[in-house]
């Protein structure tokens, strides 16, 4: 097993992350003494991310996009499937090995208010993990934190201040600084700009892009804000009820969406342009409960182009041109 550890940093393949048939089920109990059920939060998800690129993951709330991100990092244990990070199976590592790998994969959470400890000064928040992992010699730690803060647009003299003294945008910068201080290869950004004001969102998006260019980072960008995802991502995956319905290059997905769900989702984005009156496809009803998903294609209950086969058979992955994957019976002939 020791051999694997050395591989962690040396085994640099082009595909930094390979997710194969990942499943994550949560057990729930319906009411007091009710029968046990499982929520299939992530159900058979497969994708790969190339080094140095950004993959966007979009979908409605409850579709499992955040759970996917967290299961990849092994913040949740998987139910089935594999996650290969730099060729190493994340879910088969021992605690010790995982701890070492943690520095290479980081996460930025949605809410910069609850994800920072209110009792620690921000210099400590940023430097704590670096010291714990012994990434820099003790005497250089202070300078290192200064360097990281500067690269994230924070003033180093703020080091002794506490999180409550900062605005939302500043706090999100602190979260980003905390993540990149460990010199990671891969960061899961879980709705990083959703809690921020419109005028501040652009600052954070630009910072993430600059850091990517500088450090060659790879992002998994989870968001429900489709225009932000379109702006930042190289590839996009669309999720519905725990499963990926469509994956492809950003231009392909946005200009030529194939799956009826993707079409409806994109047509629902309100455009900041009064003359662009798009023909909105209004989906009926809301997303079904993941504890009791529909049979066959999970989207068939809301789909305008639903056929008989959709109600019974789960559609297979179909690869169209340019590696554009879609799971829909409309394209299976």
């Amino acid at each position, binding site marked *: 097993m020791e051999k694997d550890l050395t591989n962690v940093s040396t085994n640099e393949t082009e595909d930094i992350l390979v997710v194969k048939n990942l499943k994550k089920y949560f057990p729930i109990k319906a009411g007091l003494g009710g029968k046990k059920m499982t929520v299939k939060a992530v159900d058979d998800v497969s994708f790969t991310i190339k080094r140095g690129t950004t993959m966007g993951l979009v979908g*409605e*709330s409850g579709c499992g996009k955040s759970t996917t991100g967290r299961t990849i990092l092994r913040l949740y244990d998987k139910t089935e499937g594999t996650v290969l990070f730099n060729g190493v199976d994340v879910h088969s590592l021992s605690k010790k090995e995982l701890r070492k790998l943690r520095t290479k994969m980081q996460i930025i959470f949605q809410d910069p208010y609850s994800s920072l400890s209110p009792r620690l000064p921000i210099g400590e928040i940023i430097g704590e993990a670096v010291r714990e992992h012994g990434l820099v010699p003790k005497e250089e730690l202070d300078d290192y934190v200064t360097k990281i803060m500067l690269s994230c647009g924070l003033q180093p003299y703020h080091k002794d201040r506490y999180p409550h003294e900062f*605005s939302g*945008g*500043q706090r999100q910068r602190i979260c980003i600084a905390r993540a990149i201080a460990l010199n990671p290869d891969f960061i899961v950004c879980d709705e990083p700009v959703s809690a921020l*004001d*419109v*005028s*501040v*969102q*652009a*600052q954070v*998006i*630009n910072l993430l*892009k600059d850091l990517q260019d500088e450090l060659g980072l790879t992002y998994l960008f989870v968001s*429900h804000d*489709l*225009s*932000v995802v*379109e*702006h930042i991502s190289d590839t996009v995956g669309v999720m519905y009820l725990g499963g990926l319905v469509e994956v492809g290059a950003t231009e392909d997905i946005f200009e030529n969406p194939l799956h009826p769900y993707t079409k*409806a*989702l994109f*047509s*629902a*984005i*309100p*455009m*900041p*342009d*009064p*003359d*662009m*009156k798009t023909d*909105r496809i*209004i*989906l009926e009803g*809301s*997303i079904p409960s993941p504890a009791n998903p529909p049979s066959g294609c999970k989207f068939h209950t809301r789909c305008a182009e639903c056929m008989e086969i959709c109600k019974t058979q789960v559609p297979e992955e179909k690869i169209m041109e340019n590696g554009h994957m879609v799971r829909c019976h409309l394209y299976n002939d």
Partner: protein
Amino acid sequence: MSEEVKYILEVNDLHTSFFTENGEVCAVNGISMNLEPGKTLGIVGESGSGKSVTAYSIMQILAETGKITSGEVKYCGEDITKWSEAQMTKFRGSKCSIIFQDPMTSLNPVFTIGSQLEEAILLHTDKDKKQAKERAVEMLTLVGVNEPEKRVKQYPHELSGGMRQRVMIAMALACEPDILIADEPTTALDVTIQAQILELMQDLQKKLGMAIIMVTHDLGVIASMCDEIMVMYGGRVCERGTADDIFYRPAHEYTKGLLRSIPKTDNMDEKLVPIGGTPINLLNMPEGCAFCPRCDAAMKICLKEKPEEYRISDTHLASCWMNIKELYEAQGEGKNE
């Protein structure tokens, strides 16, 4: 008076303050606006810009520490800030109602949907209990809630977010108000559900002919819904005009910055141009223009003096010194600033 017909709601130089432990916070600082019957006015701004407080001031449902300090709110020509509490109670619900951002917390969890709807109807109309029940079912049908007879007996937790927001809209419209204030009605909802709710509001406006005041931070929602738009920053109006004025001919530096900073189809491959700095702290307002500390084009005068509202065209007004500077330049006067 002919004016009465023209505007259903007129707000003139409204000031609202909150008296907190840290001093007086002037959340709304001289707002003026007009609303024509059956039209939609959008109020857009960041958090803390005073857009929600403006809406609450119109309804006079401010928190205890809040007070309208000056200005007038005219409904059909009458100044309602002078009205008694009893008159206001009549006004709310039957003439003007509001839907809130969060449908999860604005419904009472211990009463059924039906009883909450009936309460509003019984309070504001002279219908009896049986008629109120029928009206409740009718309203739920109108807003597209399926199986309304069953829903009236259900509790809020049994409905999804989108359904609850529909119930809120049904409740707001049950007494056929002339004005509907929607305070971030879709912010807590998914895009697909948001599209449903926006479509519903537009449909209902066509059917019932009420005027809508749409309060939101989402420029996309504003663009697709509103006839007129008011952009707010730091408790003041930056700019107001038709949707075309604001989106195609923005005149205030803040509006311009805001439009530059959002990802759109035409700037997908470029870097976004963010507005620098952080949103304003109302306890510590600058002397001059509220946006001046974050403005790239700020001049000396911006620091010292509040810009006056300047009329650019019949429909378009902006409060920015840049416009006045440009005017001078256009007139060919060599010296300005």
